[in-house]
């Protein structure tokens, strides 16, 4: 049985490909791209919320936010590890992000201007991420699927925490309430765009679905997300900024207005409000940390040489 046959069988059985299994180069490449983009999104995603750690308005919120941003770094670690099992070293992925070649979720190129944005990011952005990611827990590539299981568990906490931030605000003072509504107004559109362009404009999706990486189309997931957040926003006592939003009895789903795809493609092209700043922040952290990483490598070499010497001495004796 050839590797290719076995691969096709595994896919047909909807079971899992593991690192040592044969896989088509295109499958490998496509996965590396997707997993590393996902990892990069976690890394860049630390910035907008990280901005608010120092200013969180209560110590409890500060602790929750710090833990959340820390989780994002952790997710980045899982995902880079999963991608590494496909033969791409982490350094290469860092370099791609550094050089601006790699993509990450556009949503993180929007600023988090107010504390309510931290809530909106948790509720809407992490919410959209979960809708996207739950099906990925069954992705055909084993390490990716397993990483997603861990990540999804944490993301659902994050979404809940975001919702709670908004709930406190929407039940607080008039100013807090307005802050919450404004944040939802700002993040609603970009959050819906996190599922990617409309199905007609998304050529890679087909192949991804055939390989059991993706399970649903962009538009299917987007619909699922809208259906999920409408009752949640009602529970918050806030509204979504879409006058066309309404329940469609026939479809059994909410109808919603077309999104601003011009903005979406502009942001993808690097003209988001903070596209340059996010990358610069990442680069300067890398640059400033270079001497530390070099020292760690030098020290590790030194220690292993000493161990070798000790061992040689032991054997010689």
């Amino acid at each position, binding site marked *: 049985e050839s590797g290719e046959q076995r691969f096709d069988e595994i896919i047909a059985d909807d079971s899992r490909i593991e690192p040592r299994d044969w896989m088509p180069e295109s499958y490998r490449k496509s996965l590396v791209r997707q997993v590393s983009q996902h990892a990069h999104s976690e890394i860049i995603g*630390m910035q907008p919320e990280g901005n608010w750690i120092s200013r969180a*308005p209560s*110590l409890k*919120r500060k602790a929750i936010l710090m833990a959340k941003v*820390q989780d994002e770094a952790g997710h980045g670690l899982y995902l880079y590890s999963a991608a590494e099992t496909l033969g791409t070293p982490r350094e290469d992925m860092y370099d791609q992000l550094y050089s601006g070649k790699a993509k990450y979720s556009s949503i993180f190129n929007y600023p988090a201007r107010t504390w309510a944005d931290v809530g909106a990011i948790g509720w809407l952005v992490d919410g959209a991420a979960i809708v996207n990611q739950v099906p990925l827990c069954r992705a055909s590539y084993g390490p990716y699927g397993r990483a997603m299981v861990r990540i999804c568990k944490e993301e659902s906490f994050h979404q809940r925490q975001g919702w709670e931030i908004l709930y406190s605000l929407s039940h*607080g003072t008039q100013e807090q309430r307005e802050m919450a509504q404004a944040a939802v107004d700002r993040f609603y559109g970009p959050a819906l765009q996190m599922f990617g362009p409309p199905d007609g404009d998304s050529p890679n999706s087909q192949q991804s679905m055939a390989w059991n990486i993706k399970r649903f189309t962009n538009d299917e997931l987007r619909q699922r997300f809208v259906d999920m957040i409408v009752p949640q926003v009602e529970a918050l006592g806030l509204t979504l900024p879409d006058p066309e939003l309404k329940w469609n009895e026939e479809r059994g789903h909410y109808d919603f207005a077309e999104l601003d795809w011009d903005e979406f493609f502009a942001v993808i092209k690097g003209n988001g409000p903070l596209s340059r700043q996010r990358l610069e922040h990442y680069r300067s952290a890398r640059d400033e*940390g270079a001497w530390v990483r070099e020292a760690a490598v030098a*020290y590790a070499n030194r220690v292993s040489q000493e161990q070798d010497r000790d061992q040689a001495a032991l054997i010689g004796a």
Partner: protein
Amino acid sequence: DEATARYALILGDDALMLSQRLGAWVSRAPELEEDVALANIALDLLGHARFLLTYAGTAWGKSEDDLAYFREEEEFRSCRLVEQENGDFGKTIARQLIFSFYQHELYSRLVDSTDATLAAIAAKALKEVDYHQDHAAQWVLRLGLGTEESSRRMQSGLDSVWSYVEELFTDVEPIAELGDVAVLPSALRESTLNRLHQVIEDAGLGVPDMSGAHGADRSGRHSEQRGFILAEMQVLARRHPGATW
């Protein structure tokens, strides 16, 4: 009682300020693993601060947030060491080394406090500080014995904060009058310094030769940085007095 509460403030303010400083590393660390590690330490310290401020607040009917967000600059009792700027990673690690070693010596005695709450807080914190000191000491070794540049930077980090070491061991009031409730800072001096010297020497670095910077009383003679730290930390809470979050 009042004196115990004021003691808890001293411990809590140190933890709060250092946590605030470390939080600024998140997304800026030299390695992704360090983003996780530094956030972890910051989170531990914030946890200690919350216990301690909450406990202190019971004496005055105040919450942790009242104390963190609505005290003025001159009312905090943190030492100057924890308020120093992050600087580069070497300076941050130098600050971590000193503070975590001090805190370890402190908490490992405070577990025997006759105040049950302080003893319990210390016991919980001690396990975490164990990791903090290990983290710092490992990095001091790596940087001290790594490259020429890292050794230079680690040394200059130590030089940069060393003049604030002595303040940690000053028996400021009301500690002396608290007896077995508290741990006398001066009693920690020798063991902490011995352990610090050991690590610094193991890392091929030099113990800075300098006496303490003037003005070591944890009140009214704080660092120039404190005002900047609080301006940022308190801005949102103060914009909405009385709000809940």
